[in-house]
């Protein structure tokens, strides 16, 4: 059992989420930096998608009632990227983040809250899964997995100060002026797990009719009438009525999940090519 002494600004339980339920309106959820979640779980010997704690902006303070093997990954902290043994009764203080915005606390055995639709993730948009952590909560730890911790890992590269995200154009890139995404964009403080809101010169539309609602994926860059795009993260609604200019490459989603308010970023556009229209 883990006792929450201080929850931090926003700490939730996240695993690999709820893919496969989008047709019923259920968001994917899951960790916003899946690479960091997988690394933390490897360090403690869990399955890559086991449930961990996702802390936002700064870390929680946790008292372990039993001895546990723990790893902190994602946003860089004093304790990052190595397995830590926390003794029974000891306190893990995740503390301040040196960069990035989301850190993961993985515990050998995983956070064993009740799964909902196959996932233990907190969905902040829909209210599925456990609520965000509060002081005084007690979290169960799951059974030890048969797999051993893997320690022979190179440390992950630091987050770039001004990242460039690869964006595959479509499905609605033809609704916008060419070069609409040139230049740098600034991350708005109103960003959250639903989406990263970007500020910059308004994106110009060349088609002005209303889009009939259609399915959207994590990483989609959705453009509302204001022209200020929203990069959808894991708790995004499953359908949307704003055209999507392009989708961030899956390998760059971990960077998107670590964007800090005020940070600048740019996009490098990739065309889906003529073959996109053929099966």
């Amino acid at each position, binding site marked *: 059992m883990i006792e929450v002494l201080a929850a931090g600004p926003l700490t939730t339980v996240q695993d690999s989420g709820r893919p496969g339920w989008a*047709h019923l309106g259920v968001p994917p959820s899951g960790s916003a930096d899946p690479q960091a979640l997988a690394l933390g779980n490897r360090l403690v010997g869990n399955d890559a998608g086991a449930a961990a704690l996702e802390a936002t902006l700064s870390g929680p303070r946790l008292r372990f009632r039993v001895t546990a093997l723990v790893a902190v990954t994602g946003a860089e902290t004093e304790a990052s990227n190595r397995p830590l043994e926390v003794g029974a009764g000891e306190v893990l203080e995740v503390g301040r983040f040196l960069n990035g915005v989301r850190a993961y606390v993985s515990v050998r055995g995983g956070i064993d809250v009740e799964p909902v639709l196959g996932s233990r993730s907190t969905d902040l948009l829909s*209210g*599925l899964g456990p609520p965000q952590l509060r002081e005084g909560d007690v979290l169960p730890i799951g059974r030890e997995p048969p797999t051993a911790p893997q320690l022979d890992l190179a440390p992950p590269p630091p987050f770039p100060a001004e990242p460039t995200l690869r964006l595959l154009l*479509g499905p609605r890139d033809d609704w916008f002026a060419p070069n609409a995404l040139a230049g740098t964009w600034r991350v708005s403080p109103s960003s959250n797990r639903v989406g990263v809101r970007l500020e910059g010169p308004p994106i110009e539309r060349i088609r002005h009719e209303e889009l009939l609602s259609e399915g959207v994926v994590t990483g989609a860059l959705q453009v509302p009438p204001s022209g200020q795009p929203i990069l959808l993260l894991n708790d995004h609604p499953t*359908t949307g009525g704003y055209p999507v200019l392009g*989708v961030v490459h*899956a390998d760059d989603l971990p960077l998107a999940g670590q964007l800090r308010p005020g940070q600048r970023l740019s996009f490098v556009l990739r065309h889906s090519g003529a073959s996109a229209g*053929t099966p």
Partner: protein
Amino acid sequence: MIEVRRAGEHGVVLELQDNAAAVRVARGLASEPGLVDVVPGHRTVLVTWEDERPELIKLAEAALGDDEAAPIGAFVEIPVRYDGPDLDEVARLTALSPEEVAARHMRAEYIVGFLGFAPGFAYLLGGDERLRVERRVEPRERVPAGSVALAGPYSGIYPRESPGGWQLIGSTTTVLFDATRDSPALLSPGDRVRFVPA
């Protein structure tokens, strides 16, 4: 004719003629192995896959040509009280009496076009054209669960308390979404719906 639009490395949006075609293709693809999500929209289907891109056009065309795959959804009756805070406003906008708004809303048979916005939130098509109203200028921060609402061509029911901008004309106690049920959403794409007096 199916138009294919790219939606990331592992997804496409199939653009179809109308909602009936979208529902049909979505149902045809639903149990295809290797796919992650098959999400109908108003007249599109978003398809995402795990590793290998499947032969989607062939599968979609087969679904469109296959009468067996035609949307024969469940028939669901939803008991409603027409007591919504926007009922008078909808009556004013449509130049009908509140009683006529309710009567026309109950007379239509709806088809679940697609879901979205929230778990279990169904966009119902096929309503009375006369009841077509715009969304509210000022969305509400809190719409109660079970609110029956109108916006554009759609009717909908809010499954849980949430923000919302649709015109609220009534309420139901029917549970639209329950994650512990075998099929968590009461309404699925292609189902037929009728509103009846509570």
